[in-house]
Each structure stands twice: as structure tokens, then as C-alpha cells.
């Protein structure tokens, strides 16, 4: 039975807060300073005094309504949950297709293709060390290879994400495959992941192929071409994930991504496109670290900034232009080699933060990522984690379930301020293109990476199994590694050589000449359109990239320590 309150009810919330503070201070002893990864001091308690109720309509509002703090759609995950998009890339096209069908059979709902690092670097399989082929992604160099990769996949009904940096050969190969199968390009949907060349110059250099000015030109051409020919395709994915994985704080990563989006949008406007024509196809890609509430606040703040920015800066009128659509991936940097099964717990916490953050699409990392390229066993657990969170844990019953939390709303406001401050410094240095050209962004990221590392080394940031709770581990307990059979790769190489020898060399040479002329001209011709034509007539990935590298220069990131 409830007992009546013995203590007098305080006269006001301010009085109650003062009394709580006195009790807290008396009992806590030496309170520790808590800062989140973005450097925001975190208080022990948040109350109605931390949020301005009068700003609810303007800052929080309702899902599907600007500023979209609570989500970009009225129904959010109650209506439709996120796209379950696991990254898959392995060995030969046939091996990839087998793994892809397995993942689709386990509940994944969309295709994602990771090519081999040789492809990322812009080379064909016969241009690199054979030892490295297919160890981290699928060795796809031609339209025929893509047809094998996507065998049995209904291209008109399956969203396909291609990890496909400039000049977007994988999309070109996919379009060639679609045409052969009689699939209308206008039915094709998906995303050009890794189209954000600025993030590649700054951080994940693996994807960087062509020097900055050329990459800038090709991206604008790609956006314009896709809008005209593949209207359901998201030509641009702005990547904050690379920056955060390289060390940027969550606030910095969001700020850099938003500044990159501004740069790309400015370039599209300069090329004569109208904002409501290209903004609805802008998408974003972020990291979800283990800093649970900070990540949720990061996503809520990002949505709000984008909604206001698209209207204020670009005069966007179409609501789709202001909706901040994003894919997110759980953070690999937070995973440990030590006691690797613990990573399942880490990925689960990260994934919940992403779900509460209102994501549209998610990849959960396999627990064995810190040991090797993920095994099939690890990949299945990652998919199951999403299935459990989506269908067992009741996380999706309520839209933005943390909205209205004093802490989450206050933190969303503080993250927004922190993000805006970083954005202002980038804008002051001439915008994102200039800021990465000068190395400013790289230096900020390097400094943040060092601060995080120091926190781990000093023990200020616990990492279970690394700087705390270590146990003696038996190497035998670690999972066995899957590698493509060298024989398969050898056969793939031989088939490639035979195929090249049988091609019409005249047709290939003519297509590459057209591509070179297009790149050599100062605009006027759409370079990506020429890439699509070259891919369709049998030019290889390495030939297309090599031609553009010769015309536009090879990209090298700044070496900064």
C-alpha cells in the first residue's frame, strides 16, 4: 500500500532541484567529470529546467513534419522498419552471389555489394598482387561479372547499394545487366555508396581514385545523369561514417557530412540544377558508436539542421528535399579482438542507438570484424541481431520513444550547437572543398583520434577485454577464417584473360576514346554518360578508371600526422 509522503512538497521545481543538488553533492563525494565523445559535459540529471517547453513546436514537433527532429516520416518504424542492408563482398562473382542469396534468405531486404580492394583502387584483377584478390570483396571488373553477382536478384524490385566510388563503374555494369534483362532503368532503385569523394580524400582513402577537381566534376555529372535516366537512384550518399571511423567525434562527423552536402549542393546549383530536382536524392551514411545517447542526439540534431538548411540556403519547397535520409553502420572501431564474442553485445547497443536515432537503413557489423573479414557465421549473427531487435524487443512500437526525455532533448540541442560551431569553422575556411584541400579537416580528425586513443590508454575510457576485465584467451577459441580458394581466383583470372582476348578491340578502343575526349573537354559532355556507354560495350573497370586517371590525374591524400 502506498504511504503518504512524509516530506513537504517543495514550492517549485527550482526549489526541488536545489534540494536534490544538495543531497546529491552530499552523497556523491568527489563527482567525476563526464564528457561525451564530442566534448559536451554531461550532467548527472536533466529536468524540465533543461528544456524550453515553449520551443517544442519549433524544435521537436511531430514525425514527418519539419524540422523532422522526431523522424522524417509520419509513421517511422511503426509503419515500415529500416532496410536491412548487410555489406557483402567476397571472392569471385559466383561466390558473392551464393553469400548474397544466403543473407537475403536470412532476412536481409536489400543488396549491397562490396568490391575487392583492387576495384576500389581502380584496377582490374590482372593489375595487382594476386594474393590480395577477393580477400575483402568481390572481384568484379566487367558487366558480365555484375550479371553473375546479381543472378536471381530482381533488379526492378530490389534496392541495390553499390560501394562504388567515382567514376561509378559498378552502377554502369549494373545498368548494362538490367538492359540485357529487359529491366527498365526507371524501375531501378538503390544508392551509389562511396560517391562522396571528399570523405575519401579526408579519411577512407581506399575509395579515392581520381584527383579532387576531376572527382568533383564527375560527381556533379553523375547526379545530373542519374536524375535524368535512373530517377529512383540515389546518386549521392554523403558520408560522415568515414570521418568518424577515422577519429572524428560524433559532432565533427555530422558537421563534416553536412558541410560536404552543402558543397555538393552548391556545385549542383552552379551546374544549373534546381535544388528540388537533386536534393530529394541526397542520402547520408553515418557511424553508430557505443556512445549511446550521444549518437541518438547526433541523428536528431542532424535531421533538424538539414531541414532548416535546405529551406534557408536552397529555398527547397519539396518536403523530400528536407528529409534527412540516412543509412548507418555500427562502429567497427569500437570492436575488439580480445574476447570477440563481446562484440555482439557492443553491436547490439550500437544498433539500438541507431534505431532510436531514426535510421532508414542499417548494417550491423559481424562480431569477428576485428579478427578478419567477417565469416559467414559472424554475418548471420549480425543479421539475426537486427531481426531480434526489430521483431522481439518491441523497440519499434513507438516513434522516437526517447523524444521528450529531458536529457535527450537537451543533448540534441547541445549537439546541434556543437555541430553548428564546427560547420561555421569549415564555412569560414571557404567551404568543405577548400577545408579538405588545405588539410584542416584531416588535422581536426587526427587530433580527435589521438584524444580518444589517450582516453583508452589512460583507462579513462574502459574497453572491456582491452584495458579492463582482461582474461587469458585461447587462440583456438577464435573463429576459423574464410578465404577465397586460390584456385577459384586463379580460374577467375584465366577466364578474364580469355574474355579480354576475344573482345572486339576496336569497339572498346572507340568507347575509351570517347570517354577520354569527354574528360578532356572542359564540360559540356557528361562524363558518367560515357562511362555507362563504355561499360555496356565491354570496357573493363580498370580500363575506364585508367582512362580517367590519365585525363584527370590520380588522387593522393595528404600525408598528415
Amino acid at each position: 500500500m502506498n504511504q503518504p509522503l512524509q516530506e513537504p512538497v517543495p514550492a517549485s521545481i527550482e526549489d526541488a532541484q536545489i534540494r536534490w543538488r544538495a543531497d546529491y553533492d552530499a552523497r556523491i563525494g568527489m563527482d567525476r567529470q563526464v564528457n561525451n565523445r564530442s566534448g559536451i559535459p554531461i550532467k548527472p540529471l536533466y529536468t524540465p529546467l533543461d528544456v524550453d517547453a515553449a520551443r517544442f513546436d519549433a524544435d521537436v514537433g511531430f514525425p514527418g513534419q519539419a524540422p523532422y527532429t522526431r523522424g522524417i516520416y509520419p509513421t517511422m518504424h511503426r509503419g515500415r522498419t529500416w532496410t536491412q542492408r548487410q555489406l557483402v563482398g567476397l571472392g569471385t562473382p559466383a561466390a558473392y552471389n551464393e553469400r548474397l542469396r544466403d543473407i537475403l534468405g536470412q532476412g536481409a531486404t536489400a543488396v549491397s555489394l562490396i568490391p575487392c580492394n583492387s576495384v576500389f583502387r581502380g584496377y582490374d584483377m590482372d593489375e595487382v598482387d594476386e594474393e590480395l584478390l577477393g580477400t575483402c570483396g568481390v572481384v568484379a571488373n566487367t558487366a558480365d561479372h555484375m550479371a553473375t553477382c546479381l543472378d536471381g536478384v530482381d533488379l526492378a524490385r530490389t534496392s541495390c547499394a553499390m560501394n562504388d566510388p567515382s567514376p561509378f563503374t559498378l552502377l554502369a555494369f549494373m545498368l548494362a545487366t538490367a538492359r540485357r534483362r529487359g529491366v527498365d532503368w526507371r524501375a531501378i532503385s538503390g544508392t551509389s555508396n562511396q560517391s562522396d569523394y571528399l570523405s575519401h580524400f579526408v579519411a577512407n582513402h581506399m575509395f579515392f581514385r581520381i584527383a579532387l577537381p576531376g572527382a568533383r566534376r564527375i560527381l556533379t555529372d553523375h547526379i545530373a545523369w542519374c536524375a535524368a535516366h535512373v530517377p529512383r537512384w540515389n546518386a549521392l550518399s554523403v558520408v560522415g561514417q568515414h570521418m568518424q571511423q577515422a577519429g572524428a567525434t560524433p559532432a565533427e562527423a555530422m558537421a563534416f557530412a553536412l558541410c560536404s552536402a552543402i558543397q555538393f549542393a552548391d556545385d549542383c546549383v552552379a551546374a544549373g540544377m534546381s535544388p528540388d530536382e537533386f536534393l530529394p536524392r541526397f542520402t547520408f551514411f553515418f557511424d553508430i558508436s557505443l556512445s549511446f545517447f550521444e549518437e541518438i542526439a547526433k541523428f536528431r540534431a542532424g535531421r533538424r539542421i538539414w531541414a532548416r538548411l535546405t529551406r534557408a540556403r536552397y529555398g527547397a519547397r519539396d518536403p523530400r528535399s528536407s528529409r534527412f535520409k540516412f543509412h548507418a553502420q555500427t562502429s567497427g572501431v569500437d570492436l575488439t579482438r580480445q574476447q570477440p564474442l563481446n562484440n555482439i553485445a557492443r553491436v547490439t547497443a550500437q544498433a539500438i542507438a541507431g534505431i532510436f536515432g531514426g535510421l532508414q537503413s542499417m548494417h550491423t557489423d559481424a562480431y569477428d570484424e576485428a579478427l578478419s573479414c567477417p565469416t559467414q557465421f559472424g554475418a548471420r549473427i549480425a543479421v539475426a541481431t537486427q531481426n531480434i531487435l526489430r521483431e522481439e524487443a518491441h523497440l519499434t512500437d513507438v516513434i522516437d520513444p526517447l523524444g521528450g526525455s529531458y536529457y535527450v532533448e537537451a543533448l540534441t540541442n547541445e549537439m546541434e550547437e556543437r555541430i553548428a560551431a564546427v560547420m561555421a569553422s569549415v564555412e569560414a575556411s571557404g567551404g568543405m572543398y577548400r577545408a579538405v584541400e588545405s588539410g584542416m579537416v584531416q588535422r581536426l580528425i587526427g587530433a580527435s583520434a589521438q584524444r580518444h586513443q589517450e582516453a583508452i590508454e589512460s583507462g579513462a575510457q574502459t574497453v572491456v577485454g582491452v584495458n579492463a576485465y582482461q582474461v587469458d584467451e585461447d587462440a583456438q577459441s577464435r573463429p576459423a577464417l574464410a578465404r577465397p580458394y586460390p584456385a577459384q581466383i586463379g580460374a577467375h583470372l584465366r577466364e578474364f584473360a580469355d574474355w579480354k582476348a576475344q573482345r572486339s578491340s576496336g569497339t572498346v578502343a572507340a568507347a575509351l576514346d570517347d570517354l577520354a575526349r569527354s574528360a578532356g573537354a572542359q564540360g559540356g559532355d557528361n562524363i558518367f554518360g560515357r562511362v555507362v556507354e563504355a561499360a555496356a560495350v565491354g570496357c573493363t573497370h580498370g580500363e575506364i578508371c585508367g582512362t580517367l586517371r590519365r585525363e584527370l590525374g590520380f588522387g593522393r591524400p595528404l600525408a598528415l600526422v
Partner: protein
Amino acid sequence: MAVRPKVLITKIGLDGHDRGSRIVAAHLRDAGMEVVYTPPWQELAAVVKLALEEDVDVIGLSSLATDHLIVPKLMTKLRAAGLGDVAVIVGGIVPDEDEKALLDAGVARVFHPGAPLESISAFVRDAALRVRAARFPAQEA
């Protein structure tokens, strides 16, 4: 005279994730060592040339996405260039069975994710001392 170790921190192969190499390079520099740092994707021949021209004691190779598989090729080239005495360390994601192959190929040590920076700088300092002692036995004090 105190030995100031000279270290080349680089990445070979195709991957471009450089958070690890940048952090380790900055740490070794801050620990008082002379650090030569390169961006990723160095050709094996370029690494050999740089190691020779810069006269480094230690080469640190960072690998995240299987580029460690061509380290044995680099070891062969280093020996062929007369640089067999340079200590080569590898840091990053290296599966157990591959670690053994690297050690068999002459790699001095493999550091895995979670290795404390101090353990890396301590090893590099000792390795540099050994390399110098072997190169200049007369100067041993």
C-alpha cells in the same frame, strides 16, 4: 650517446584506412623517435627505396584489410637490397594463422588491435637498438 631510433611508418597494398598508422606515427614521434611517414598504397619497391635512402632502423607496416598477405614479398625484396637487418613490425588485423606465416617470413613482431601504444614504442626502441648494435658493433659503448 643516446640512440634516436629512426622508423618508417607506411602501408603497402590496396587498403587506405590510416587511422592506425597515423596514431602510431604520432606516438613514436612524440616519444622522441625520428619518424618517416607515408600515405597508403606504397609499392613494395618504393618502401625498399625509402628504407634505404632514409637509413631507417625499423619499418612499421599497418594493415587493416589483408594487405599483410604481401609482407613476405616485401621481406624478400628487403633482403635482396641488403636491408635484411632492418626490423619489420606489422600492426593491424592479422589472423592467427597469418601471424605465424609473417613471423616465419622474418617479421619481428605483429601488434594486434588493442595493443597499448607504450608496448609498441618500447618494442621499436629495443629493436632499433639491436639493429644499430649489429650494424656498428665497434661503437657499442
